[in-house]
């Protein structure tokens, strides 16, 4: 790890966002991960996304479990709320936090071990409940902190650094998220910020469960020939179905693309997504055909990336449960103790 603090000095002409912050203001402390770790690029992408959206840092809550990936919230958004939970239990804590205070932006950061092994059940239920959050899995296919054993997302037939071949079938978290009802599903690559940053921005603006699987090479244990999660493998087999441009203004739509190759999707808050189609036959609004497409391409050895599925008016947990509109900490005595008359009526309704 780096011993010195990242210098406070910054580029004199650094752009500022609507709040007057530079992207440096969204940083955390210097990473203690291995040099070159893909996770650090994901942290940088989150920083860039939050900067570009001009999010007030104190309105964001970042939650994580255990593992290399789950250490990363320390390295971004140093001014935001954070919760480092028990291994695999981030989804429950996030769900609880979201129920208590629905006004914050929830960013769940997890890894392939944290979400696909010990926390698989938590992951599944959090997605199917439609919790309004961004759930990012930093997926490197190995247990980095324990020296590189295969994780549950490692592809069958891929090999470890010392040559052992993985004989178990992989868990595809994207397919699971699609099947469990996530309303925003994407996959990206830590080495491609041009793709990743807009996907994170759109996920943050999305209301409902947004899931992003980010393939993130482990430079120490999984960046060798035979790995399917190395820089070289992902670059060689990356099949992006579309390129997302995130836009706030409708006016910003530029019509210089061939007809049928650009699609504009309005989010619930009125913000606009522009999707440039790269695979012309891919429809990101069809859950079932998306699953089929993914499995076909995956069988061919490709890593399908891009915005894989989006459903703008899906709703979220608060809508399903018909919860109170304001965060619980803003409720006063009048709302919390509405009096004996109301209690009597409520009880009567159940008799």
């Amino acid at each position, binding site marked *: *790890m*780096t*011993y*010195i*603090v*990242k*210098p*406070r*000095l*910054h*580029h*004199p*002409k*650094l752009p500022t966002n609507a709040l007057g912050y530079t992207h*440096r203001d969204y940083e955390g402390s*210097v*990473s203690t991960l*291995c*040099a*070159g*770790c*893909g996770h*650090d*690029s994901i*942290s*940088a992408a989150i920083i860039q996304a939050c900067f570009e959206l001009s999010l007030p840092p104190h309105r964001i809550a970042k939650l994580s479990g255990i593992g290399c990936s789950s250490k990363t919230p320390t390295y971004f958004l140093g001014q935001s709320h954070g919760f480092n939970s028990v291994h695999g239990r981030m989804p429950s804590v996030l769900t609880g936090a979201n129920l208590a205070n629905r006004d914050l932006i929830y960013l769940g950061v997890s890894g392939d071990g944290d979400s696909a092994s010990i926390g698989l059940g938590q992951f599944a239920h959090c997605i199917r409940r439609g919790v309004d959050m961004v759930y990012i899995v930093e997926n490197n296919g190995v247990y980095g902190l324990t020296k590189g054993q295969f994780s549950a997302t490692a592809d069958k037939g891929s090999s470890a650094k010392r040559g052992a071949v993985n004989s178990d079938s992989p868990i595809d978290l994207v397919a699971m998220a699609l099947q469990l009802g996530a309303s925003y599903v994407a996959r990206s690559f*830590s*080495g491609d*910020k041009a793709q990743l940053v807009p996907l994170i921005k759109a996920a943050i603006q999305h209301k409902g469960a947004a899931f992003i699987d980010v393939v993130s*090479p482990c*430079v*120490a244990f999984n*960046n060798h020939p035979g790995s399917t999660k190395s*820089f*070289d493998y992902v*670059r060689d087999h990356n099949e992006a179905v579309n390129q997302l441009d995130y836009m706030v203004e409708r006016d910003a739509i530029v019509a210089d693309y061939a007809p049928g190759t650009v699609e504009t999707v309005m989010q619930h808050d009125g913000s606009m997504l522009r999707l440039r189609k790269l695979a012309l036959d891919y429809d990101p609004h069809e859950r079932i055909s998306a699953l089929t497409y993914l499995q076909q391409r995956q069988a061919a050895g490709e890593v399908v990336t891009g915005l894989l599925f989006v459903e703008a008016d899906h709703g979220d947990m608060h809508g399903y449960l018909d919860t109170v509109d304001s965060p619980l900490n803003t409720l006063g005595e009048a709302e919390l103790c509405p009096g004996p008359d109301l209690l009597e009526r409520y009880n009567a309704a159940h008799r």
Partner: protein
Amino acid sequence: MHPTDISNPDYFHKVVDCQWACPAHTPVPEYIRLIADRRFGDAWAINWESNVFPGILGRTCDRPCEPACRRGRVEKEPVAICRLKRVAADNKGDISRYLPAIPTQKNGKRIALVGAGPASLTVARDLMPLGYHCVMFDGDSKGGGMMRSQIPRFRLPETVTDEEVDIIVDMGVETRFGPGGYVDSLKSLLAEGWDAVFVGSGAPRGREIEIPGRQEAGAHIHIGIDWLSSVSFGHVDKIGRRVIVLGGGNTAMDCCRSSRRLGGEEVTVVVRSGFEEMKASAWEKEDAQHEGIPILNFLVPVEFTHDSGKLTGVLFEKVKAEYDEKGRRNLVPTGEPHTHVPCDDVLVAIGQENSFPWIERDIGIEFDRWGMPKVDPKTMQASLPHVFFGGDSAFGPKNIIWAVAHGHDAAISIDKFCHGEDVAERPAPGVTLVSQKMGIHEWSYDNDISNDLRYKVPLRDLKVALKDIRTEVELGYDDKLAFLEAERCLNCDIQTVFAGPLCIECDACVDICPMDCITFTDNGAEAELRTRLSAPATDFEQDLYIGDSLKTGRIMVKDEDVCLHCGLCAERCPTGAWDMSKFLINITQAGTACRSR
């Protein structure tokens, strides 16, 4: 763009902005690190080798390095390079072990040096260790030239001048100082059969002012540099109570501050231009104002008023600056009534001129139409092959550090000339580039960036300072301040060296760089490429470092402009594609290394 050729010494030399800007190319970051390490003698030696007068320049240099300093581009002010140099000189201790041996067996070549200023002294310093017999001529009784005669003692104590001049003279230079050393004819000097003659006679004439009253009131109107020299040699020790200094250069600042110490209670500087356009260095103006000297601007002197020959004041016309369509400035009268400023003495410091009445025009030395000798700017050679010029006498008034640079160049030429070699063929610099990696995250230099702002040099109490013209005003940094100021240096000579074939394009360097210097992108033409980097790269003076051989076919672009040389790119690089390497460039000086045979 093409990949950067880092084997060209100029590329990394330019990144060390201070060293590149210094006419003598002193390795600044190298000696600043030594100061931080309390190795003052070693720091002094680096300076002495390259700029010859560390103690003098550490107090008086025009510091072209400081405006160039990268620190000034990433925060408010540059590193106080000049005053750190003084720290090295003040604390150097015994320096005898750094001095070169002087051969007792001479090489039989006799060199005449006209003038004993910084240029001639540098030539002697470079040639004496090679076995030359150098003879130095000067009309003053001691060596040093304008460093001794024109720079006031409160800025530069005479002991410092003595010491640094003596180091050179004690190498065995034969001196002909005093009235007998004044050269009044180059023709007769050449007739003495020297192997080479170096002219470092300076720009000794102060510019005159021709306005009414100049003659009549002349007794109390003095030419600035002549007056300073008289003060320096003790011929003048007082001045009137009210003094006007005409002119806005550094000489004017020395005149007004000297006046304050010789009885001038109301000293005023008056300049024709605006305050901002004055030629004086910003810090010299600041020093003058600190001593209670007002600077009046946009006033053109039109008449010296006098009462039957006794100066009573100066009449000024008020002007304003107007710019024509080509952006040239004209000073035009405002039409307001003239201003009269009463005074007892006037010092005229409106410029210096060269003067060569002692060089006959028929001896083969060509002059241009401005009366300046034709001198090759690289070799310092005149049209008469065995005559060389340097310092102010070569290209007009500049400053000490330029004179030193000229001296080094002239010494190389003289040495090559005396060995029958082509002087136009210049020696390449000595360059080393060595990795500074000591461990996984350890470097041989302190890469932690100091957030401190520039430290002010402590000054002597004004009341005490103004009492005696020989009392040095600046006290210099003490140990602690020197360390803290040295820590502000960004170590620009520790270069970020990129090896494309090792890079796996993981973006770790891009993500960690505190200055957003690094971008991986598709190649393009420079102007267009600069528009799509991580952060704006609008300074075309600062190079883009281009690295190729990447697997994706993209290029690595690093904007050198505001790089802190903190080494975080190299620390976060998993494959060692980035390395921090110390680039040391030593400009070759006269000697066997610069000869081709």
